[in-house]
């Protein structure tokens, strides 16, 4: 594959190589700026207008008053540098502005100038800067080189989460008319069509019918993929990629088979045909809330008793951590189940209760490893114990596949790397960044592939799946090596003799 840029060379994971600084290496990397057509439907100004500097500072002040995280994180960084070698984008690019503290300082320098005594009196001493076009451009470039993966927040002795700062910066840029095309275009589609991919209802119905036929052909069992069924027990909200392309659809087939085998009635919804919530990526509470309300509306309209989310990382963070805040309370749902539930919690529960049967021989020859999706790992949970987000997927995988090997301990669970495509950077013009950001993960995969003949990487996120299928080939791996956990359940589940 001919790349317009260099694919980094894979190193040894155990060595924990820290690159030498390459100042300015990624200074040119930036996504497309949103046009008025993407901005205005979300209520943001179409273009950068005169006086934007003042507006930006005004918005910064508002956010500082609304978010304790932002206010505290601005003040308490001791510049210890514990985070400097933790971000996959720094490890992959060597650009010092991709070190979390340096990224945050792009914002903090402006904060200091306008909101602190030290920055007003002695800007040079404390590195305070005026808000200028150069600063804004730097923000635009480098706050779109952060996937909001929170890896830095695990290691910072003060708990500083640079993701929070990226979100605030993006919110400010939207507010003054310099948004990012990729995210804002997608949010527009959610509001207009119901999902990120802009798949209209008839196309969805068509796809689901086709999938039902495929399953029938393959298994001889009439597994249904119902949509907009009033009175179903479960509303399944899943990323729209699951309706669209491999390997995502294989996971959707897996969910359908599990519901079928368990005998639980379920439905998808055309109104809430998207689990992802890009409102988080742009750091905008109102957008995040508006997108979440669709799920409440769909649940009410369909009269369901439970809400279950399909496999998606950032979506699960918003669902698990924020949905109750944004769109609750959920008093009209069945109180015996958490709201929302993750499909893996549902499936794992069935496995332990022997409500479904899995036969590992369906996945013969597979040697698995797990890529913990970043926002599930560090921004959410599954089950009723801390760390359930690591054990539950692994338990389901062990029940479905003969062999599971974990990658290097510095690259999994809470220390997992982002796939390189999360948080609103999964767009073609940022391919260079995505490729380099994937480096630490690829090194860890290579180690287990060489040593343990691992031939498949399981993940629980639509963005991870899309990113992996794109970048794996650049590093000499097969594209088909990546897929979801329910893709494995799908090929292991025993159908046809349900009670």
């Amino acid at each position: 594959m001919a790349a317009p840029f260099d694919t980094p060379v894979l190193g040894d994971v155990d060595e924990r190589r820290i690159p030498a600084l390459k100042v300015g290496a990624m200074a040119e990397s930036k996504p497309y700026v949103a046009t008025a057509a993407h901005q205005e439907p979300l209520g943001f100004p179409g273009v950068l207008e005169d006086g934007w500097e003042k507006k930006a500072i005004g918005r910064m002040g508002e956010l500082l008053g609304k978010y304790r995280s932002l206010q505290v994180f601005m003040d308490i960084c001791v510049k210890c540098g514990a985070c400097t070698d933790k971000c996959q984008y720094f490890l992959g690019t060597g650009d010092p502005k991709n070190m979390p503290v340096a990224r945050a300082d792009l914002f903090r320098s402006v904060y200091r100038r306008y909101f602190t005594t030290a920055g007003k009196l002695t800007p040079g001493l404390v590195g305070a800067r005026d808000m200028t076009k150069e600063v804004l451009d730097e923000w635009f470039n480098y706050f779109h080189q952060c996937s909001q993966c929170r890896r830095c927040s695990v290691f910072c002795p003060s708990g500083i989460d640079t993701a929070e700062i990226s979100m605030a910066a993006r919110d400010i840029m939207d507010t003054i008319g310099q948004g990012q095309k990729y995210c804002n275009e997608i949010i527009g589609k959610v509001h207009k069509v119901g999902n990120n991919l802009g798949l209209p209802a008839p196309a969805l119905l068509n796809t689901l019918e086709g999938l039902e036929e495929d399953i029938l052909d393959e298994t001889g069992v009439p597994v249904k993929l119902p949509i907009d069924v009033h009175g179903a027990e479960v509303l399944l909200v899943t990323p729209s990629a699951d309706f669209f392309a491999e390997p995502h659809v294989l996971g959707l087939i897996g969910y359908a088979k599990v519901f079928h085998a368990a005998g639980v009635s379920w439905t998808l919804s055309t109104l809430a045909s998207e689990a992802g919530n890009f409102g988080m990526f742009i750091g905008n509470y109102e957008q995040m809330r508006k997108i979440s309300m669709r799920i409440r509306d769909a649940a009410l309209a369909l009269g369901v008793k439970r809400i279950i989310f399909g496999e998606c990382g950032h979506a699960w963070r918003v669902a698990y951590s924020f949905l109750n805040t944004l769109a609750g309370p959920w008093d009209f749902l069945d109180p015996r189940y958490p709201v929302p539930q993750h499909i893996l919690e549902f499936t794992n529960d069935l496995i332990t209760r022997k409500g479904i049967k899995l036969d590992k021989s369906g996945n013969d020859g597979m040697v698995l490893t797990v890529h913990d999706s970043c926002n599930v790992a560090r921004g959410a949970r599954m089950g009723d114990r801390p760390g359930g987000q690591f054990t539950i997927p692994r338990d389901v995988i062990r029940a479905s596949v003969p062999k599971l090997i974990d990658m290097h301990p510095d690259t999994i669970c809470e220390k997992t790397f982002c796939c390189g495509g999360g948080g609103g950077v999964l767009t073609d013009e940022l391919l260079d960044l995505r490729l380099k950001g994937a480096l630490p993960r690829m090194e860890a995969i290579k180690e287990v592939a060489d040593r343990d003949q691992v031939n498949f990487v399981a993940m629980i996120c639509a963005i991870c799946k899309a990113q992996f299928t794109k970048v794996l080939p650049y590093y000499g791996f097969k594209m088909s090596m990546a897929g979801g956990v329910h893709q494995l359940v799908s090929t292991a589940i025993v159908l046809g003799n349900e009670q």
Partner: protein
Amino acid sequence: MTTFFAILFTVATLTLVIGLGLKIAQYARTPAPLKIPTTPAPLTKPGVAFRLAREAVVFESLFKANKPLWIFAALFHFGLAVVLVRHVRYFQTEVGPLVALVQPLALPAGLAMLIGLLLLLGRRLVLERIRYITGRSDILMLVLLLGIAVTGMFMTKHVHTDVVAVKAFFTGLLGFEIRSLPGDPLLVVHLLLVAILMIVFPFSKLLHAPGLFFSPTRNQTDTPREHRHLCDWAAKLEDKRS
């Protein structure tokens, strides 16, 4: 000299107390609209208290991040902690058991602090990554602390000052009474630097000490599904909901 220091320390103390008080009030007042603990996170309030205690006492996250830095940080901070406890004797007529306990530790604690500071400073100058993120204020802060530590240790080891008079001066100040302060140059420099430290504290990164306890990634329970978390400004948006 005595009057100058009496005024200086009154100003420094007021700045420290009021400045810090305002900052802490600001952190406490600012709402945290969303549940953002870095997971896996504790599910209960005692669990959170234990997490914060681990961060404050053994620097848990720093230990995960960087072992050499953790050692440097521990040397400096533990040394500092002991030194500060030892100093309580300048402000209390009757010293408590803890203060008495650490009295013999002047040399080890001072040295730990000094070595820790030198290592932290060296790291800032030598490591390329750390040099990149270091600003002038970061260097100055270390130099300031070094200055305090060196002058203090010289007094402890070589050029003794009249500790009883120092104590009389500070206990006097606490009762709004001015008693004379010894004019030893080392003491003067030590106290001058300490006053600067107290004044810059609420305006600098030293806010990390109180700030840690307000860090939402560390001080929140992981219970978003069990309890609806709603801050005031977010609740106002609900009113608009039909």
